[in-house]
């Protein structure tokens, strides 16, 4: 096991959500979309690369139409497996198709303050605190930038954010909030300092980059330029589609899968054409828009199905997947949050999605809650346990023990029980107390989860980052400020 990191591996449970025929139908539809409808690439550099490779490029509309063969041959250059490096090499994460890792969710704008319980605008110190707690929490394998550091300068905000995480945790950092060439360049420089050199960064990339697409069928110019820089440096890069039924995708799930797939695959192929063999991943968080408001829902049966179907697609292209799970639309940790986060994470886990994003948010990834973070971690632990399935062998059938106890006895005093009792899951936040005890205290999961987070924050001392490195980071950041 990786140091202080829990991951799902060698699962016993399986699910066939799409047949091979259905997958190839979605793939064909995707190629048709890219060739006939086209995808928008508002970056001169990206358009040049497409043009040089023989794609049809409309410079005015910045729309590229690409033949299926070119997409297919580019996608074959993607490495199927690689490592996400961590500041502590014992926490490197193999993206090999046989591990499911969870990260903190990202892009939040508000935080429920860990001390006052009041909701307020997110700031840099919140990133520090969340990173420290995540560092100590075994369910969290890597970081996204959890919330926006809204008290830092805009042009270097993304750099302050990753600096803060590296200063407070030894685990891998994946940023989703760097979408400009200048910031990406500086971030890569910072990552190379942590890794020791540009070459070692390539071998053990301590940073990965996630870029959002602009659905339907578009990309953001800054994101494309940042992604190309990252791919050049060997930093794992993924494009995330958040295509949503009704608004940015068709009302039907298959159609929305195809639209999102076209965005991701076209972007990924571009990186492979520019830098063959660059480490890439598929990223997705498709959903269905709310029928009444059109809003992002953050949960529901459509999300659960997308969660399982997308890994089938990324497996088809033989690249790792970073999948949106958790991220409930609920306003507080409650029934809705429990259902949405459990089912979305279960469905994405049962197909072995490599990375799951992520723990900690309410209101569709907008409001950070420390209690929700800890409860999400327990949800992952429950699924982790469930995925191990039921072992059937002589030891687990325990016939000799059954015979020994016989009718009307009990198993509490058996040696076999002592040997295996810790195989059973012991929840931290489920209330299994006698009713009377609950009635006298009226406390529960939220209280316990919050107090766990508070204790970690008070007590956990992460392995510090060399202050000299922090100084160098400051210099890099300052050099970018006007």
């Amino acid at each position, binding site marked *: 096991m990786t140091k202080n990191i829990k991951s799902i591996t060698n699962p016993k449970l399986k699910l066939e959500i799409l047949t091979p025929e259905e997958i190839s139908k979605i793939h064909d539809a995707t190629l048709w979309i890219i060739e006939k409808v086209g995808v928008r690439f*508002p970056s001169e550099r990206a358009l040049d690369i497409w043009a040089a490779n023989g794609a049809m490029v409309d410079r005015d509309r910045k729309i590229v139409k690409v033949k299926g063969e070119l997409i297919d041959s580019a996608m074959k250059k993607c490495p199927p497996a690689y490592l996400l490096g961590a500041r502590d090499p014992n926490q490197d994460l193999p993206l090999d198709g046989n591990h499911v890792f969870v990260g903190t969710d990202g892009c939040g*704008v*508000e935080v429920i303050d860990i001390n006052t319980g009041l909701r307020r605008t997110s700031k840099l110190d919140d990133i520090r605190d969340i990173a420290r707690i995540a560092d100590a929490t075994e369910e969290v394998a890597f970081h996204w930038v959890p919330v926006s550091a809204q008290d830092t300068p805009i042009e270097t905000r993304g750099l302050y954010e990753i600096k803060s995480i590296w200063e407070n945790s030894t685990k891998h950092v994946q940023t989703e909030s760097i979408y400009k060439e200048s910031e990406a360049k500086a971030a890569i420089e910072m990552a190379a300092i942590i890794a020791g050199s540009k070459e070692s960064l390539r071998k053990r990339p301590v940073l990965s980059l996630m870029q959002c697409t*602009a659905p339907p069928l578009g990309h953001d110019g800054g994101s494309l330029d940042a992604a190309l820089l990252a791919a050049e440096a060997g930093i794992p890069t993924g494009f995330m589609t958040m295509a949503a039924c009704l608004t940015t995708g068709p009302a039907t799930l298959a159609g929305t899968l195809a639209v999102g797939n076209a965005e991701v695959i076209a972007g990924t192929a571009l990186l492979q054409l520019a830098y063959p063999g660059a480490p890439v991943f598929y990223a997705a968080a498709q959903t269905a828009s709310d*029928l*009444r*408001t059109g809003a992002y829902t953050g949960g529901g049966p459509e999300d659960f199905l997308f969660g399982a179907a997308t890994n089938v697609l990324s497996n088809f292209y033989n690249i790792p997947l970073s999948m949106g799970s958790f991220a409930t639309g609920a306003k507080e940790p409650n029934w809705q949050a429990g259902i949405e986060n459990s089912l979305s994470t279960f469905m994405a886990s049962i197909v072995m999605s490599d990375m799951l994003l992520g723990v900690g948010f309410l209101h569709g990834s*907008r409001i950070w809650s420390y209690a929700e973070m800890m409860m999400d971690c327990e949800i992952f632990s429950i699924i982790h346990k469930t995925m191990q399935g039921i072992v059937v062998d002589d030891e687990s059938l325990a016939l000799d023990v059954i015979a020994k106890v016989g009718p009307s006895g009990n198993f509490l005093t058996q040696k076999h029980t002592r040997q295996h009792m810790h195989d059973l899951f012991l929840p931290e936040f489920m209330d299994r107390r006698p009713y009377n005890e609950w009635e006298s205290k009226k406390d529960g999961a939220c209280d316990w989860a919050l107090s766990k987070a508070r204790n970690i924050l008070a007590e956990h001392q992460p392995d510090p980052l060399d202050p000299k490195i922090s100084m160098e980071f400051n210099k890099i950041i300052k050099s970018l400020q006007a």
Partner: protein
Amino acid sequence: MSEELFKKMAQSIIDGDSEAALMLAKDSIRDNINPLDAITKGFVVGVNTVGAAFGRGEAFLPELVMAGEAMKAAVSVLDPELKKRGTERKMLGKVVIATVEGDIHEIGKSLVATMLGASGFEVFDLGVDTPSDKIIGKALEVNADIIAMSALLTTTMVKQREVIEELEKEGLRHKVKVMVGGAPVTRDWVTAIGADGFSEDAIGAVAIAKQFMGVE
């Protein structure tokens, strides 16, 4: 005769059928029906029907948007005819709407624009990545009652503040109401930048705009 046509007009909106609405509007001009009547006795009845069904939870957002689009199609034919006759449709107010500079995420903004248009506002949609001075310039040009701005990123959201600051600097702030929206926009942000209102969805945005204009 025209009663029958008015009914068909309302139905074309209820069905969200832009092509039918366009044809019916053209028919009404051919038959020399007062374009103002075509709008108020025909098409608007359809908009109100869908709006009421939405309010009761019986119609859904796509139906509302399609009704708005069909209304837009009809009005595109009838408005020039109104001008020719020297009359004007009474609008609730003028709205300049845009996604701010540096931001290309416009689906929410476009939804708000459609809903405002369907609700009787005159809407000037400047699209995405719109510099602050362009937003203000357009508002001055058309003598807008409302400026509406969207942003999806915390790094572009600050442009909403910039527009308000510019308006203040130019002494224009009192002339126009400002409403903002987008996923990262919170009540705290709205208070901090001194905007007049915000909404988390398109329906709410129409309510705020109407409130600004003192209707309903």
